[in-house]
């Protein structure tokens, strides 16, 4: 049980002297609350596994510190940190039974046998592995094996955090839901800090109460799923989360107006102090743009196609060189392939060099 603080933590596989652009994990300072359910979300190669391995001690960071409850544990080996980790592919000790697998971490730490038996029985019950405790672990299905990997972490009563490295990759889709709800239930029951690495936004958003989005070795935003959706702090978060992702359109912003081409879009807030020379864009989620019949005063776009997702339809439109998606209301048709775009001003955000700019009220 612990709060985890990362202080100016960074890692480069090329060593500390490598140029900072090449760092797999760029300097980050953040706090993981005790008992929080976190998801570390990002595309492949964004550094999320590196960050996880740094926390668990498999990788020693090139710089910075990791604190567990304020205590610096950076130099400690993996064995000495109270961390449990579940890997992408189930790790099972072939020759052992399920029970022996669960007992392994305790045996290695010299826990008395009576205590081991008690803990194994307890965790077996918690993970619904009781009927298999005396069976060879190799014969079980992938999801049972993942539960055993998790169980090996949970048997240790002193475990500070459980780290998951895309643990559902090899699990059948139907069982994924079950296992994920099991994880949520365990999280509520055990009050453990859980950090869950994934590139699947659905997994991240359903599992976590705080989602940490990483991009190119950097933590670009950390917040609740709703925050990530409503107010992406970075254009990357905008289009990585949500399906389809956020529309990012180059624009000229002055005061309460954004100029796209010759057209002016009203903004809810005033942006007077934009950094000079920065690349200015506006971002708006497709849910808050509506395609309507072309009319004067509306930005007009070419409709390329309309995707019907069942409960909602999205029009794929072209605006000059920019592509964008917009909600198509029921009954919308566009005989000549053009349409007007109606923006919801309260959901139009302004980005300078990809970073969100807070406007003045």
């Amino acid at each position, binding site marked *: 049980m612990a709060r985890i603080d990362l202080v100016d933590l960074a890692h480069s596989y090329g060593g500390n002297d490598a140029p900072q652009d090449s760092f797999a994990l760029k300097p980050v300072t953040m706090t993981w609350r005790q008992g929080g359910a976190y998801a570390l979300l990002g595309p492949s190669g964004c550094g999320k596994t590196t960050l996880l391995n740094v926390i668990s001690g498999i990788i020693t960071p090139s710089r910075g510190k990791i604190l567990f409850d304020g205590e610096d544990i950076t130099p400690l080996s993996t064995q000495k940190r109270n961390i449990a980790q579940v890997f*992408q*592919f189930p790790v099972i000790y*072939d020759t052992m039974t399920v029970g022996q697998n669960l007992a392994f*971490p305790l045996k290695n730490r010299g826990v008395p046998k009576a205590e081991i038996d008690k803990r194994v029985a307890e965790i077996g019950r918690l993970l619904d592995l009781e009927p298999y405790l005396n069976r060879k672990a190799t014969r*079980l299905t992938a999801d049972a*094996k993942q539960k055993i990997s998790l169980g090996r972490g949970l048997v240790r009563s002193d475990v500070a955090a459980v780290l998951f490295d895309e643990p559902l990759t090899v699990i059948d889709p139907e069982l994924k839901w079950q296992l994920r709800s099991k994880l949520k239930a365990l999280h509520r029951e055990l009050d453990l800090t859980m950090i869950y690495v994934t590139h699947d936004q659905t997994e991240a958003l359903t599992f976590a109460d705080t989602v940490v989005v990483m991009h190119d070795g950097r933590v670009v935003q950390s917040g609740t799923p709703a925050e990530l959706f409503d107010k992406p702090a970075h254009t990357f978060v905008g289009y990585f989360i949500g399906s389809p992702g956020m529309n990012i359109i180059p624009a000229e912003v002055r005061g309460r107006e954004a100029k796209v081409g010759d057209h002016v879009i009203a903004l809810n807030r005033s942006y007077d102090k934009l950094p000079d020379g920065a690349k200015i864009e506006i971002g708006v989620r497709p849910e808050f743009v509506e395609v309507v019949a072309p009319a004067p005063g509306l930005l007009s776009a070419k409709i390329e196609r309309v995707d019907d997702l069942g409960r909602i339809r999205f029009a794929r439109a072209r605006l000059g060189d920019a592509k964008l998606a917009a909600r198509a209301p029921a009954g919308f048709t566009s005989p000549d392939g053009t349409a007007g775009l109606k923006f919801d001003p309260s959901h139009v955000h302004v980005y300078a060099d990809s970073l969100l700019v807070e406007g003045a009220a």
Partner: protein
Amino acid sequence: MDKTVNQKAWFLVLPVFLVVAFSAVLPLMTVVNYSMQDTFGNNQFFWNGVGWFKELLDPSTDLGGRFLASLGRNLFFSLVILAIEVPLGIVVALSMPRQGWTVAACLVILALPLLIPWNVVGTIWQIFGRPDIGLLGYVLNHIGIDYNYVSNEIDAWVTVIVMDVWHWTSLVALLCYAGLKSIPEAYYQAAQIDGASRWAVFKAIQLPKMNRVLLIAVLLRFMDSFMIYTEPFVVTGGGPGNSTTFVSIELVKIALGQFDLGKAAALSLVYNLIILIVCWIFYTVMTNASAERKPQEGAA
């Protein structure tokens, strides 16, 4: 269903039939034929029935005594080299580097003894061990160890065993190394997190993951050492006395030395049968082991 009757198809099978007949069936039958007869040279043969086989299994006869003694020596030899080469091979494989240019260097060095023709290996050790001009023999005698593989039985055995270990441990090591390389990194990381000691990692991960290649290594080394001929023949010629005469050496002595074709044929049939049985046992164990693994691979 009606099948077209076309006797011409036999002609298509004929080449294979002939090749197999000349390469396997006829020679084997010749041996079976010889094993039932006695010869005094001059192509004169006399029917002996199962007489030679009875003698082979009876230690009180000359043939049986020689066969059983050499068989015992051979089994002992195989057990000793297995007991040394398998653990040593594992240790070598475990201490090999996992990456970098040193991997290639280690592999080449390990492969070297395997590439040397067997009689050359024998010659190398024959000279290496000589007390007068051999580096090993000279040095040993010089520092006060009385070593002479030509006259001392134990010295001869030690030489033959060390030579085999030198020649073949690489094979076990290379097989084990391949087995170790196939273990995903996550296993080691998980073991680290589980607080496993070096020994626990070996017992819980490395040894179980290696057991299939180890089985192959044991099979190959057992068969090879059980059929060994060239190297001990070159080094000791089966001596001193008969102390390093293994089954194959005994066989050649009887067949080519004494020209007792009947006895030699009976001996080689029994020799062959033993090898087949051992092969079959290993094969059964191996297929059972992989059958046990199947469901796991299917699930993962």
